[in-house]
């Protein structure tokens, strides 16, 4: 079997490469003041891609933002004696009867200490405020260290090691436990397609291709791979040929979108469409709208001087039926008609 841990489904939050926020509390069983604070911190951690380690002398919590908090009791194997020892090494004095945050540290995934704050004797800061300050500090690039010194380096190593040991001991959980806590935005968009306005309400992640096919009933544009590898989804955006599967509907707002339906109809074919029919430049027809839109783009780009150019510049459109030779003939024929120019460059009647 392959080495390594079982894959989590969501690898966007890479485990040991993510920053660790270590919060030290004087005492207490609960790192969060209330549910609102927990959710606010969850959002900050998500934005940081970080996990939170909260400890008091007796208790240890691990909090991954897309997860419930996990309490580990007694504290797991940790280097040199667990939380009390760590407090000492970090220079934080836990005092009984003084609950609340006493120190906050942030170590990034590369092992660099990025933020360190030990609260003064009378200082009171909520965990939330501290985490927000740490977030801002994370915007500083690691190349500019926040006061690096041997001590800081050792501290950072200590924290990273501790964090790893803790995380290793935690039961593996699905990284994204509660999808309901992820962004729920819907966007109100208007797309200009084939000269008509189409108002839509969509999640931001919807591709232009899916918006066309699933939301607008414009199924002429085809899905052949959904990853930009086949060209079947080619449309024109502001006259340029592009792939609609790798275009967000949201990005396409404000541009002129042309799909196969906008090029011509069975009763009134565009010259490229007519050429494809006449030359039998299709078989199953599934790649055909993408081939045609791409060919129209190719003609307007003006770089194809001969058949070899056409082949090279159409290579982003796969045809599994093998209609390629007829497609090239059709494009040459339509190119002549559309530009009044023969493929060898000689001008003909417009």
């Amino acid at each position: 079997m392959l080495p390594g841990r079982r894959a989590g489904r969501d690898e966007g939050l890479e485990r040991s490469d993510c920053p660790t926020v270590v919060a030290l509390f004087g005492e207490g069983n609960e790192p969060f003041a209330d549910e609102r604070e927990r959710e606010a911190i969850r959002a900050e951690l998500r934005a940081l891609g970080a996990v939170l380690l909260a400890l008091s002398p007796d208790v240890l919590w691990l909090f991954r933002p897309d997860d419930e908090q996990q309490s580990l009791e007694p504290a797991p194997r940790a280097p040199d004696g667990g939380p009390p020892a760590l407090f000492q090494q970090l220079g934080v004095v836990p005092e009984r009867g003084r609950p609340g945050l006493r120190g906050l540290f942030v170590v990034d995934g590369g092992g660099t200490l990025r933020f360190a704050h030990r609260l003064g004797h009378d200082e009171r800061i909520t965990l939330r405020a501290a985490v927000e300050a740490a977030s801002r500090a994370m915007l500083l690039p690691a190349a500019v260290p926040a006061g690096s010194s041997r001590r800081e380096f050792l501290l950072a190593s200590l924290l990273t090691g501790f964090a790893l040991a803790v995380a290793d001991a935690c039961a593996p959980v699905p990284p994204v436990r509660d999808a309901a806590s992820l962004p729920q935005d819907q966007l109100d968009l208007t797309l200009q397609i084939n000269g008509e306005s189409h108002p839509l309400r969509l999640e931001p992640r919807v591709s232009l291709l899916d918006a066309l096919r699933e939301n607008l009933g414009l199924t002429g544009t085809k899905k052949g791979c959904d990853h930009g590898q086949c060209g079947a989804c080619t449309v024109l955006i502001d006259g340029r040929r592009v792939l609609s599967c790798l275009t967000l509907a949201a990005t396409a707002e404000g541009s002129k979108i042309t799909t196969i339906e906008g090029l011509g109809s069975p009763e009134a074919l565009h010259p490229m469409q007519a050429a494809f029919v006449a030359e039998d430049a299709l078989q199953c027809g599934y790649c055909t709208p993408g081939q045609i839109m791409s060919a129209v783009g190719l003609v307007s780009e003006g770089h194809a001087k001969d058949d070899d150019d056409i082949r090279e510049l159409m290579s982003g459109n796969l045809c599994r039926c093998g209609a390629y030779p007829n497609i090239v003939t059709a494009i040459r024929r339509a190119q002549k008609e559309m530009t009044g120019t023969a493929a060898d460059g000689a001008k003909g009647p417009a």
Partner: protein
Amino acid sequence: MTAPFTYVRVTGDADAALDTATPGSQLLAGGTNLLDMMRLGVVSPTRLLDISRLASSGPWGRVEETDGGLSIGALVRNSDLAYHPLVRARFPVLSQALLSGASPQLRNMATTAGNVMQRTRCPYFRDIGVPACNKRNPGSGCAAWDGFARPHAILGGSRDCIAVHPSDMCVALVALDAIVHVRGHYGAGEGLTERQIAIADFHLVPGSTPSRETTIGPGELITRVVLPATPFAARSAYVKARDRASYAFALASAGVALHLEGGKIRDARVALGGVATKPWRSHEAERVLAGHEPTGALFERAADAALADAQPRPDNRFKVPLAKATIVRALTRAREAT
């Protein structure tokens, strides 16, 4: 399998994008790499900052002359760059590299900065059903090392990662000593300023931290890529060897430039693609070339030097002779260029 995210359209002011950028955010330009990765579930930003509209303002979308060199805006489309008359005339290796990559549609969408930042095509990396990928899942191992390693790197890799860098454009940029201009919060003050990073330092070999691929981090934004004036770069060429005639990544490629004077090579640039974990500059080959007549035998020796430290896996041993052949072919083309 795209995770939900908040969409923010950035117009007019790039600095606003940087102020709100946090490690959970990603910048969206052309989207040809990012949306692909998101749909695979490999990355899951919770916030997308769409900066594509900045192309119409300021230098973002422009190619400008700078004392014999070129300043290429971060959002210039790959196709526009490839066909730009100044690029074709002064830096043909860059135009040829761009036109050998991807497809016309992808080139119409992809941007300069996006191409520089693109991630590997390693099939194990791209498949979240595969646990062992140090790049995606640090500490989990490298499935390619003892697996299907045919597409992967023979230079700059290790047991931890042999993922090949897929960009053609970056090979040309490395050969041309490009400089990447980056904007971010530097220093203790509040303001946004710029710093410059040589392209050779921009990409990182995986080492023991394959998940770190570039020197920049969240809160930093490429603004432009500058090609210094290099008059002899007009004598340059890009040769790409691949499994089919078009629309395929390089098995091996070479981007070269030659400064010929008095029948000898005064200066040379040699960069390799398809064989290394980052766009690979070969000073070893350049040292062999400098000062000698540009013969076929010299080119072969330079190619040998470039690949001397290659460490292929059983699956990709063929890349050694193939890479050498692309170097020799590219040098020959550069020599023959008029």
